[in-house]
């Protein structure tokens, strides 16, 4: 029933920076099935956006080195030419960016920017415009017809985010990457946007990779979850499984820090210490400096990815031993 759509295999991304290389993403593995909502959570700077952009091959270009595979519908997108990638973007994979405020071109009306995407599928102008208005209604844009003729600076942050969503679902992609689609918005609008994303999944069987800081949000919509820490995917698995039985020390701390009340309070709370910036390649667990269970081995050896249940993977030395 569930067919695999996207699989990342040992994806690593280094940025060239002043100090040398910043290992922003290391050995990330996960897969998303058709019609599934996969949530990626983790503190700011842990590499979530970097992973998302690399799937679309939209990293800034110039200072990054990428290794590993991005397999989408059986094809490795890392091997695909730029021309072929252009056909995949928007059509097969859509992406909503973290910051809706400057993600729209200030000189064109928002409607024409959405229409521009639709017209790529050889739809004529009036037809495209009608679809834009339809889409604006779908994403609950107030005054859809009027708003389509507005310029981005005339819209609020929430409206611009709706425009972005309308644009990215306009071509019915099979996978939608949503990079913190609600972080900039208030709680009521957040709920509406989530409802839109859920409806999309139910209506069109769209798979969604949802990036967020917000655990409350994850519990509400996600099917699977991936916890990232300092560029590594430390735990992946089914949402219920992980909420019931968090295994990795970092996930546990996150859960413990979670007051299960309103969504806003559900945002990740701080844990003692800082996320390290990894600029040199040396073995050891990246969480060791903050981990309550850390041993000598943790500081000198890379922890392996251990399977602790069906589809439930954890990267940790200690757990691996306990479970054996």
């Amino acid at each position, binding site marked *: 029933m569930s067919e695999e759509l996207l699989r990342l295999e040992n994806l690593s991304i280094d940025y060239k920076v002043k100090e040398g290389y910043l290992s922003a993403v290391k050995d990330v593995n996960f897969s998303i099935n058709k019609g599934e909502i996969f949530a990626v959570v983790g503190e700011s700077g842990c590499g979530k956006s970097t992973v998302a952009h690399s799937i*679309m091959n*939209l990293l*800034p270009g110039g200072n990054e080195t990428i290794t590993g595979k991005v397999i989408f519908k059986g094809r490795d997108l890392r091997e695909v030419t*730029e*021309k072929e990638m*252009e*056909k*995949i*973007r*928007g*059509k097969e994979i*859509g*992406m909503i*960016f973290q*910051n809706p405020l*400057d*993600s*729209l*071109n*200030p*000189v064109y009306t928002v409607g024409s920017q959405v229409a*521009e*995407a639709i017209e*790529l599928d050889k739809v004529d102008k009036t037809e495209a415009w009608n679809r834009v208005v339809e889409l604006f209604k779908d994403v609950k844009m107030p005054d859809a017809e009027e708003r389509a003729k507005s*310029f981005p*600076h*005339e819209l609020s942050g929430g409206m611009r985010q709706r425009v*972005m969503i309308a*644009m*990215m679902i306009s*071509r019915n992609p099979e996978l939608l990457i949503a990079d913190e689609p609600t972080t900039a918005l208030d709680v009521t609008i957040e709920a509406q946007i989530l409802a839109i994303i859920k409806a999309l999944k139910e209506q069109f069987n769209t798979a969604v990779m949802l990036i967020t800081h917000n655990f409350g949000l994850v519990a509400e919509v996600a099917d699977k979850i991936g916890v990232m820490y300092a560029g590594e995917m430390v735990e992946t698995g089914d949402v219920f499984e992980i909420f019931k039985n968090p295994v990795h020390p970092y996930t546990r701390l996150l859960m413990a820090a979670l007051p299960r009340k309103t969504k806003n309070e559900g945002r990740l709370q701080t844990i003692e210490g800082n996320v390290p910036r990894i600029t040199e390649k040396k073995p050891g667990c990246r969480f060791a400096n903050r981990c309550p269970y850390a041993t000598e081995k943790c500081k000198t050896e890379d922890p392996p990815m251990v399977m602790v249940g069906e589809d439930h993977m954890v990267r940790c030395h200690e757990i691996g031993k306990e479970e054996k």
Partner: protein
Amino acid sequence: MIVVSFLVFSLMYMMPGDPIDMVVDRKVSQEKKAEIAHEMGYDQPFLTQYVNWVDDTIHGDFGTSTRYKTDVWGLMKERIPYSLQLCGWSLIVELIIALPLGLLCAMKKDSFFDRFTVNFSLFLTAVPGFWLGALFIIIFAVELGWLPISGYAGPEYFVLPIATCVLTGMGGTLRITKSEVLDVINEKYVTTAYAKGLPKRTVMIKHVLRNSLILVTTLVFMSIPWLISGAVIIEKVFGLPGMGNLLLNSITVQDMPVVQAVLLLIAILTVLCNLASDLIMGVLDPRIRLSMAGGDN
């Protein structure tokens, strides 16, 4: 503008030599000279002369040329079309060449093409216009005989002057375009444009170049006075019967009314260009359009 006219007036007033000497023969007696000077108003104190001139100008009377003894406006009217055509065509050709080149240089940043184009245009900017003009005359007019040397008797007489103007002026526009394009390429909405699935070409033209134009056209319009000052020299080199030539000749013979009028015209043009650049910015950028229409933001 007032400042310009006043400055020019003062400078001409202080220039060595008596304008009357240029008009009359050396042999004419002192009395006769004084009489002519009186007729032309040159015996009055400096400020009175200035005020008179301003008064006449406002009433559309630019005075009478001391050299040609004819109406200054009439002199200018014949010459304006030449200068306007030279500057206008130079501007258009410059934009047609410099904008795409700037875009290409930005897209292929640090490639051989980029370095060669930028350095070559820099070199051309540094070369004096009259020198390049003279070189062109030697090569294309004298040696090859493809084009006329100087003067004006048909459109082909414009080719070399425009080429000179464009080549010496292009570097600035090219570099502005390149740096602005490089700025815009990093904007988030450009990434959005790619994410929609637009091909690179479309993104570059519809999003990157279009948005760069806001600043580029504004700056280009503001630089038109430089273009004009360059054209003055080039008119002289190619003997085009335009305003620049008139201006330079008039300065040498201290033909005050003509110099005044031409410079005034250039000052007016400068102000108009600044105004036009504001208007164009408004047309190109909806955020400004709104605030200019007095709407809220």
